[in-house]
């Protein structure tokens, strides 16, 4: 049990809060390259947060989880996405992100909602885990919001990755999560990334764009 207002609590709280903040930064990036940089930063903050959890929980296996997060999510995936963007010649494109103000307000509302949901439910647990889980839920919700508001497939992938980071944060905040879960989550993300990457290229090949609206037109759906 960590003292409610010790240093370790404050740092954990700060890192988790930082993750939420970086999530907000993602919401208004309209250039893909910049968005990918923010994604790398997001994963980096996650890795720091996991490492800090490893420190205060005395759980050395979490260092491995932090290493995985750093290697895969902060470096490998953003780099690969960046290469993809350059290959497709999208690095100069500006994505129209409709209504930044409204999106940000919605994000704030989501954070408020997740705190409102989680804090009473977890009233009797370890305060570190409690704050962590509440903030992790807001990261997940903001990631979903991002997937809903963007049209570009790569931005949707970024939204998905940030959502996954939120799940990771929640998992490490809870004590006693076995390492195998961490590793399998990390690998599933990697697999998902590969599959998505392949799909992106296929979509691009066929439709000359990765605006998901083109997919809908091709299916003959209602717009």
């Amino acid at each position, binding site marked *: 049990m960590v003292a409610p207002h010790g240093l370790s609590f404050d740092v954990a709280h700060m890192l988790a809060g930082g993750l939420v903040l970086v999530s907000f930064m993602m919401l208004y990036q309209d250039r893909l390259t910049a968005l990918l940089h923010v994604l790398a930063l997001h994963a980096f903050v996650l890795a720091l947060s996991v490492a800090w959890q490893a420190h205060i929980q005395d759980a050395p296996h979490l260092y491995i989880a932090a290493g995985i997060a750093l290697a895969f999510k902060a470096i490998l995936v953003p780099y690969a996405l960046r290469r993809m963007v350059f290959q497709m010649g999208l690095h100069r494109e500006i994505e129209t992100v409709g209504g930044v103000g409204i999106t940000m307000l919605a994000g704030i509302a*989501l954070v408020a*909602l*997740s705190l*409102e*949901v989680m804090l*009473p*439910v977890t009233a009797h647990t370890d305060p570190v885990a409690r704050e962590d889980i509440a903030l992790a839920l807001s990261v997940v*919700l903001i990631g*979903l*919001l991002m*997937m*809903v508001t963007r*049209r570009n497939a790569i931005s*949707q992938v970024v939204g998905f990755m940030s959502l996954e980071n939120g799940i990771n944060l929640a998992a490490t905040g809870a004590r006693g999560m076995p390492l195998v879960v961490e590793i399998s989550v990390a690998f599933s993300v990697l697999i998902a990334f590969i599959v998505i990457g392949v799909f992106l290229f296929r979509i691009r090949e066929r439709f000359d764009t990765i605006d*998901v*609206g083109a*997919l*809908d037109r091709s*299916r*003959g*759906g*209602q*717009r």
Partner: protein
Amino acid sequence: MTGAIWSIPALFVLAIVGTVTAKTPAGRIVIYGGSLLLAAGLLIAGFDALTGPVQHLRLPLGLPWIGTNLRLDALSGFFLVILGLGGGGASLFALGYGRHEHHPERVLPFFPAFLAGMATVLVADDAFTFLFGWELMSLTSWALVMAHDKEPGNARAGFVYLIMATFSGLALLLAFGMLAGPLGGYAFDSMRAAHPATGTAAIILIVALIGAGSKAGLVPLHVWLPLAHPAAPSHVSALMSGVMTKIAVYGFIRIVFDLLGPNQWWAGTAVLVLGGITAVLGVLHALMERDIKRLLAYSTVENIGIVFIGLGLALAFRATGFQAGAALALTAALFHALNHTVFKSLLFFGAGAVLNATGERDMETMGGLIHRMPRTSFAFLAGCVAIAGLPPLNGFASEWLTLQAILVHPEMSEWGLKLMIPVDGAALALAAALAGACFVRAFGIVFLGRPRTDAAAHARETDPWSIAAMMGFAALCLLAGIFPGVVIDAIAPVARGLTGARMPVQLGDAWMTIAPVEASRSSYNGLLVFGFVTASILLTVAVVHRLSRGVRRGPAWDCGFPDPTTASQYSAASFAQPLRRVFATVVFQASDTVVMPPPGDNRAASIVRRIRDPIWDTVYAPLGRGVGWIADRANKLQFLTIRRYLGFVFGALVVLLMALTLWQ
């Protein structure tokens, strides 16, 4: 546990062997021969359990915190006997009948698995194992129903069956969930120990009645049965009608009589109402039917109704503290279940033999088969006499016992029972009489008269295996009819276990007389009736032979036979016409319309008969339309953009989270 219980895993192995050997010529011999032996094993295990002590076995399979619990008591033993008899008979019949199967690979692997599923239900001692066996039984029988999926109507039959089987499994799942209670005691032992509150017990009883009843074919849950049972190959039809419906009866008895403990009197009333309606509606449907296998399936509905009348009486008597009456009613129900297995299997075998010989299921195309298939027709006749409830065969013995249970009831104070028991007595009597007419019609149209088509005229007698199976069951019908006391005494441990009482010992009485309560009130002697019937027949034959000058064949007397076409004979429709006028105009809205072509049109005039199923029209058709309406509305959801789908997920999550917040 008894060594013979190893038949169950052996049946699973046989099913796997079936997938490999199905296409080879030896596959049929291996699978049906093996099933025959293993069914004999189940029969032995059943006899052991009927007389021996309760046996337990816990296997480290299945869910880790429950395991697989098996238990053999008198009740499972009795139904294992039914399963062994029905399964063995069907296997023996199929040794010959299976030769005509065009796609053996679609039947052979599922047949032993079907038997294994039913046996698993019978020996299960926890909800998980029970439901596993139950679903295995449903799925394998569905696969067998779909074996001839290209024939018209079979795909729909399979579809309706699958829906109803899922529904019944779901209902039982609910019942077990409530029996297990909040602590999740899924082993039957802990369910027996727990005593649910009165309201919960009522819901459990109703849900169990729905779950088991829809498998057994209780009206209004019977709609799948007359579609699915005839669609399967005939030996499987025999298993489904003869045995699977009994497994459903077992499920009901196990849950309501054993696991649930004491019940309220209204439970008996509810079961009595459903049983009475089922018996009468089932036989009325059977009377209107011209497809021989569907006729038999509807007759199964009727007999299930009779069994449930017995069960309802037992519940009512048990609730009012009249234990001897409860034992009598339960014995009657179980006896009738056993009898129905024997004669319904026999009749389905006969229908299968006829189907093979003529290629037809429509009775209007048959006729005169008694000359072409004398052995089949003899066995079929025995089955008809038994199912019509004529002494001295077994159908009479059990229906008589059920009537005795109705007559024995003391003064009841509960209005529902006061009303329902006499009404059910009338319903039972009506059903028995109509069943008589129904099977006179079935036998007469199929086997008597002159052949109505070339196919019937050139039919050939079926193979020796099938004859052996049918003759064996015919002999069982006779034996159980002459010596009902043996069966009643064998059922006694079951009745004592579930009602705390038993019927008086029957074997002590002289000359195999049976007396339900005491000999001074009423008694029946099958042997005496048999002797009397046989003696009078022999006497009549002797007298006729003495007076006449042997059999002569000459031209038919013209006044009786003015028209040489076979169409002038009684047909299935014309035989049933008076009864259709009396009953079906109201119940089924039957109508006969004469279509008379206008002058100049040279089409033949015709009579169009229309029969509507009131249950289908009032319950299932609106339900189907409702589902279709919702599906039409939901269809729009199939053509949205990806972002909108994501938006739905997102919106649903947010709404649920908000609901959670407000709810706190």
